[in-house]
């Protein structure tokens, strides 16, 4: 099992009142950047990078980053910069970008160049994930949400071609046009760095991933929904001549460890002001999912699944409607002493069966000190136990399974 560490790198120095007084009472997109203090930013960026570097020390296999725009909930506005720093300052872990929001880039060639540099500087440790981005990403970059999926697919094809086809060549697509594609820098992993796709289970994306044998990382999805999503993936995989295993799936879950259950329970409350923001005010629908952004497929399987995702009380309406104790009871977050966390994770891993586990160790108002202790305990007790559980449950990861992913050739 591949174990990677994640945090959204939250900025929480603002109040619920600040959000209530902002346009549309929204914590993303239009929440004024006068609420941001760059001095605090200076401290936070360095703190978060320190935590990632320490995550290597305690034994994580991967350092996972993500990207969002116009929001205090995630400081990763240009994730590739953080990735480049980690490429240089760490030695062993994969740098897992989940992911670059392809549709918002007007110049995917520049993205291909950045990622190639990260891959070279890190000696081939890049895992290059791609996402469609939320509606906020479309609005913040003025990318027409109607063309989101088409741009995602075309930018992907262009980046992959840029990495794998000798230049120069010309690209005249529907959304992208380049007279000379020939970036001099290409990735060190051949044919190209592994591509993993994170998401909450959009059926079209599952099919698209399965067609390409790209591992799909479920972001905090509910167990029943995940089962259905995996079967959509598996069906497509079989049509393409392979049987997917744990190496095709990842699962992101918030996991926080402290010395005792009581301490962990208290500290874990800090997650509640994380990616929904201080005040836990739901985002306007026109920000999160503008008209035209969603799919119009009328495939009944897809509709059923979409309804399921929409009605997951934990996800939809977000955490504003979810309560801490309920979340813990449902084991959607795993919080406790090392012993508690290991035993609950054994249960979750045995039914989710991911080859990749993304461990969201801290968010929101969880302090640096508590985070560092969490990481320390992870390294001492949780990660070794998870590796054993992974062996026992045969949760093979993509790096253990040869030929699963393009880009496996190592340097």
């Amino acid at each position, binding site marked *: 099992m591949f174990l990677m560490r994640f945090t959204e790198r939250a900025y929480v120095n603002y109040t619920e009142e600040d959000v209530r007084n902002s346009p*549309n009472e929204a914590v993303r997109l239009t929440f004024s950047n006068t609420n941001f203090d760059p001095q605090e930013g200076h401290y936070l960026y360095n703190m978060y990078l320190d935590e990632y570097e320490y995550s290597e020390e305690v034994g994580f296999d991967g350092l996972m980053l993500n990207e969002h725009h116009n929001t205090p909930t995630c400081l990763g506005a240009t994730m590739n910069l953080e990735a480049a720093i980690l490429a240089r300052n760490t030695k062993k872990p994969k740098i897992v970008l989940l992911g670059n929001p392809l549709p918002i880039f007007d110049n995917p060639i520049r993205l291909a160049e950045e990622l190639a540099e990260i891959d070279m500087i890190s000696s081939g440790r890049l895992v290059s994930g791609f996402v469609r981005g939320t509606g906020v990403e479309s609005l913040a970059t003025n990318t027409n949400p*109607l063309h989101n999926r088409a741009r995602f697919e075309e930018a992907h094809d262009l980046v992959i071609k840029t990495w794998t086809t000798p230049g120069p060549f010309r690209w005249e697509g529907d959304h992208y046009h380049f007279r000379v594609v020939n970036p001099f820098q290409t990735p060190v992993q051949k044919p190209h760095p592994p591509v993993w796709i994170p998401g909450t289970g959009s059926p079209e994306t599952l099919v698209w991933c399965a067609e390409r044998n790209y591992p799909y990382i479920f972001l905090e999805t509910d167990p029943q929904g995940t089962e259905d999503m995996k079967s959509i993936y598996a069906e497509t995989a079989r049509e393409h001549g392979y049987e997917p295993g744990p190496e095709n799936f990842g699962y992101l879950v918030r996991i926080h460890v402290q010395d005792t259950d009581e301490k962990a329970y208290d500290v874990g409350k800090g997650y509640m002001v994380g990616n929904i923001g201080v005040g836990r005010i739901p985002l306007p629908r026109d920000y999160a999912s503008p*008209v*035209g952004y969603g799919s119009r497929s009328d495939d009944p399987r897809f509709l059923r699944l979409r309804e399921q995702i929409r009605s997951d009380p934990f996800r939809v309406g977000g955490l504003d409607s979810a309560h801490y104790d309920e979340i813990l009871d449902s084991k959607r977050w795993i919080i406790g002493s090392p012993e508690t966390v290991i035993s609950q994770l054994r249960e979750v891993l045995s039914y989710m069966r991911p080859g990749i586990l993304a461990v969201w160790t801290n968010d929101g108002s969880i302090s640096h000190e508590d985070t560092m202790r969490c990481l320390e305990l992870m390294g001492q007790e949780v990660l070794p136990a998870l590796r054993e559980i992974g062996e026992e449950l045969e949760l093979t990861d993509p790096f253990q399974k040869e030929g699963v992913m393009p880009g496996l050739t190592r340097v």
Partner: protein
Amino acid sequence: MPNFTEETISVAGGNLQVYKGGSGDPLLVLHGAGGNAGPRRYAQALAEKFTVYLPSHPGYGNSDRPGWVETMQDLACFYTWYQEQEGLENVRAIGFSMGGWLAAEMLSMTGHAFSKVMLVGAAGIKPNDGEITDIFIISPAQVRDLVYHEPSQVPEWDEMFGTDPTPEQAQQAEGDREMAIRLTWKPYMHNPRLPAKLGRVSVPTQIVWGENDNLVPVECASLYQQAIAGSGVTVIPNCGHSPQIEKPDDFVQAALAFL
């Protein structure tokens, strides 16, 4: 009251939904970004003098969207096609809001689309001082609040907004909004080259604006007037973005006086 019928005709390989009513010379009415509200009171009144054609733009209402209709210029091309096919060239026209922009694009392309044009609260030209309200980052309910200056003076309020939309109507509204996003996303609700291209226009043009327009600033009335030689301006006092709905009597009076 003149009877309106709803027709479906085939244009450019797709179905086009058209409300048609009244008698007399043809009058083409082009609806705004919010969609085709059908033959409201103002259209009924105009149908006493004219044969009113009120099509739903491709992608709106029950009209198909030919795959190539992606931009306002494509839409203008579509309508010149429609006019040619239906023998509706050189007719009177009124364009509301985005439909006003559409009429202006058509004016910039051909001298024989219209014999006389009214542009009402027309999008299409970037204001110098204000901004065209971004209707895509506010909810449809917020948009409605901004459209009307004084809802209590809207005579058809109960008819139009008195009941919750049915699921079909809600879905229709989403489809309409999607088409508006397709057509007007970027540059938002305007064409930077339009004012220069309007230099060719010699068709009699009347520019009509609600004095209290919260969507497209009233300064755009002067910008249109500057762009189109010989055009006139009528500003309707105490009125928001849609004079034809908010003050139908004043609007119809202004329309009949010009047309």
